[in-house]
């Protein structure tokens, strides 16, 4: 047998009775649903308000619903399948116990508007998690409401806006590094600010001199991740935060990379005023194929009044918890209810499972793994900024390879699929050409790192010896390379 590829389920068609969308399986009269007999008099909607005809949902028996989505799931690669080194995503293993506790009826079946008196356990959980996240980040209080990191950013920026407004100033601009994640500038706009781009220096770090020149009293603040998007620690972080504070601005910490520093240092101690956390990265709540996540936001003491409502408060006398629904300075509500509670239960489980030492080990192991893996491939795929020591992830580049062979980072990624792995992030950050951003995470073994390194090295060799293999790749995935341009040109967004 020739080795077509290893690992991923090989591209194959479904048999005719299982092919296509769920609608293709629909046949008149079939059904999965069942309801008890009606036990009250039948009432009706007035004709003028009623639907005419019916919604053309699929008609299908339960058996086929199950088979269809089971098969679809098998056409998907997850962390449970194997290594998933997407940079900036912290695709670590999601402990199963967190899944199972989130399903306890006392959490899963709570109505968001039930009285506080019968939700004491849930409120206590949120309270404890808030305390823990504040300790981890060095913040005073936090809101757990934002359902994802981007919403956390908007929350933080609105807090900045409210802070300055309260001080009687209407600052218009927010500084962000040129390597920042797309959500940063997008959030800046949504918060009604303009983005000012801060250049990086040759080491891949914020050009502090340039920053100091760039910012003035029209700048409300700076957004930064640290380690930054290149996986490098901003060594001059104190100078940076001081510079922003000097002009009266606030500094926002994008927590996507918090994994690298857990228990080692804290944004609050670096001078950050606002921090968001992606629980679906750092605290292992599963990504769900793209969501749900949770994006808690912590703030320093002076910003506490501006946090969103409702907030969980604890009556020191009775120990009872309650939701504080309004506060005059609060920016207001960021979510219809309390945010992604079910995700926060998982984050709670993760944080307290690991505890103080465990979280520190997470950081250590994640940084060690990234450095180890970098050391095994950087001769072929050089680090974009070779002078810095990467932390939990590294950004390498396929530029030399491309110059020599025409093989691009994308081709490497697709070949890696055929070699049994999910590829790394490619083409992000945008400031690096042919970027390959690799974040192995702490849950992976040395064997996995070695094998993945070997897969990259093999692809590199093949780029020279048998480039067709890379152009053709993937050949073992459920589909081969997809025509994205066609998708955008011939929009087909529904059946």
């Amino acid at each position, binding site marked *: 047998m020739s080795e077509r590829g290893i690992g991923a389920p090989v591209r194959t068609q479904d048999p005719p009775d299982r092919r296509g*969308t769920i609608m293709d399986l629909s046949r008149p009269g079939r059904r999965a649903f069942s309801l008890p007999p009606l036990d009250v008099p039948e009432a009706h909607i007035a004709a003028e308000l009623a639907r005419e005809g019916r919604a053309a949902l699929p008609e299908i028996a339960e058996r086929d619903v*199950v088979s269809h989505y089971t098969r679809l799931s098998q056409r998907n690669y997850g962390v449970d399948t194997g290594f998933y080194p997407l940079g900036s995503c912290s695709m670590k293993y999601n402990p199963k116990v967190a899944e199972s506790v989130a399903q306890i009826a006392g959490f899963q079946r709570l109505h968001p508007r039930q009285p506080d008196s019968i939700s004491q356990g849930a409120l206590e959980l949120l309270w404890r998690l808030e305390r823990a996240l504040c300790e981890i980040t060095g913040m005073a209080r936090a809101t757990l409401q934002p359902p994802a990191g981007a919403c956390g950013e908007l929350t933080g920026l609105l807090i900045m806006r409210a802070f300055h407004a309260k001080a009687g100033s209407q600052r218009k601009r927010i500084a962000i590094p040129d390597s920042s994640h797309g959500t940063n500038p997008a959030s800046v706009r949504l918060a009604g600010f303009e983005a000012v781009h801060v250049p990086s220096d040759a080491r891949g770090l914020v050009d502090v001199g340039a920053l100091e020149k760039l910012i003035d009293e029209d700048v409300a603040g700076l957004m930064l991740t640290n380690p930054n998007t290149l996986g490098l620690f901003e060594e001059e972080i104190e100078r940076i935060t001081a510079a922003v504070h000097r002009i009266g601005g606030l500094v926002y910490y994008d927590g996507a990379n918090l994994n690298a520093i857990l228990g080692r240092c804290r944004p609050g101690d670096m001078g950050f005023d606002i921090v968001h956390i992606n629980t679906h990265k750092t605290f292992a709540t599963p990504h769900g*194929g793209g969501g749900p996540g949770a994006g808690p936001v912590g703030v320093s003491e002076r910003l506490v009044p501006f946090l969103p409502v409702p907030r969980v408060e604890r009556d020191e006398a009775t120990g009872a918890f309650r939701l504080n629904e309004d506060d005059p300075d609060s920016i207001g509500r960021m979510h219809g209810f309390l945010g992604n509670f079910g995700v926060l239960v998982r984050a709670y489980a993760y944080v307290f499972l690991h505890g103080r030492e465990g979280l520190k080990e997470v950081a250590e192991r994640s940084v060690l793994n990234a450095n180890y893996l970098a050391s095994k491939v950087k001769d072929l795929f050089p680090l974009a900024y070779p002078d810095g020591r990467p932390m939990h992830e590294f950004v390498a580049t396929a530029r030399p390879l491309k110059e020599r062979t025409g093989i691009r980072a994308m081709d490497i990624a697709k070949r890696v699929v055929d070699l049994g792995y999910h590829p790394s992030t490619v083409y992000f950050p945008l400031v690096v050409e042919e970027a390959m951003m690799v974040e192995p995470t702490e849950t992976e073994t040395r064997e996995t790192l070695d094998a993945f390194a070997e897969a990259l090295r093999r692809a590199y060799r093949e780029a020279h010896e048998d480039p067709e293999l890379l152009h053709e790749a993937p050949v073992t995935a459920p589909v*081969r390379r997809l025509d994205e341009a066609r998708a955008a040109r011939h929009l087909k967004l529904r059946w």
Partner: protein
Amino acid sequence: MLEAIGLGSLDELFQQIPASVRLERPLDLPEGVSEMEIVSDLRQLAGKNRHADDLVCFAGGGAYDHFVPAVVWALAGRSEFYTSYTPYQPELSQGVLQALFEYQSMICELTAMEVSNASLYDGATALAEAVNLSRTSPGRDRVLVSAAVDPRYVETLRTYGRGAGYEPEIFEVVQGRGGSPEVGEDVACVIVQHPNAYGLLEPARELFGLAHAGGARAIQIFDPLSLGVLAPPGDLRADIAVAEGQCLGNHLNFGGPYLGIIATRLDDVRGLPGRIVGETLDVDGQTGYVLTLQAREQHIRREKATSNICTNQTLMAIAATVYLAWLGPEGLAELGRRCVSKAAYAAERLADVPGVEPLFGGEPFFKEFPLRLPRPASEVLDGLIERGFLGGVPLEDADGHALLVAVTERRTREEIDGLALALKEVLA
């Protein structure tokens, strides 16, 4: 491994961190615990809550105790789905991508709208995104909101509006519904919830007519499970339809993770926030699915993106897809009829309780209706809890003497009768 990279200690890995910011003490957190301990900790916390398995749930107001069939999480809970990332590598993500394509298709069918995205955070934030989508013509900035829109949605809008530069303006309703927004040339959109925050059915066609007459967009907040019996947003001529999709196979979860639904007209597709999946072909000509129109999104367009959303609620959308496949067209219609009949029966039984009356008049409703109580609703609710009922959610109307009661297909006649009896006792 340290040796392999030529280091002597873990600390060397963290040398770049200036000493001055290093945390030189352990985090002030408890020590890590075993799986056994975390389970009993969380069981204990959960045990301090009462919940919808242990109380009979008539609470609604944006989150509903609809039945979640076992198939939904047997499938959406498969780890290939829930442990995967956003489908940036489409070849390894066909499962999620196709499921989202099916989701978009079903939302279109449900709403009679032309295009749906692949999910937003929840109903309230979906409304905020819809407003942003509507505020694209210069000069058309104002946002008119019916007074019968869920206050939580309005509060969320107010927050988002601070950044986007608008302040939602409330127009009055009459007897809990309707109203006559004045739609001038500066109005971007008119927002109506139908069924509304009182559960009442709105004269949506008329209200949307007013919006259109003034050149504004009509935004409807709808209830997905009402659409088996109620005319869908598309037929009502809504321009943008948003909803909370929790009811579609998602658990109550104390408010999240839920599902933000948004659907609109094809014309507006390039203004839609969030991810959209499109069908395409692979190099062999085989059908496949990809994220498309990414030029709208933050990771490509950065500050010019239609929204900042990145992580969304994909898994909830998959659950909704499985749920809708389970429900089918007949199920959707029948479930809607059940809600209507059960709510009508409950309204009658509860209004029979001495001292209780409808908050307004005889306005039509779907599965939820408002009552006026002789005592503060929060007190009454406590009494009902003692008797095993989560009797509804309090309204701020009538000085807090108003209660909103939701009746889903799960509630039996016996339970409804039980609630009426309990209410009578509490008020006696």
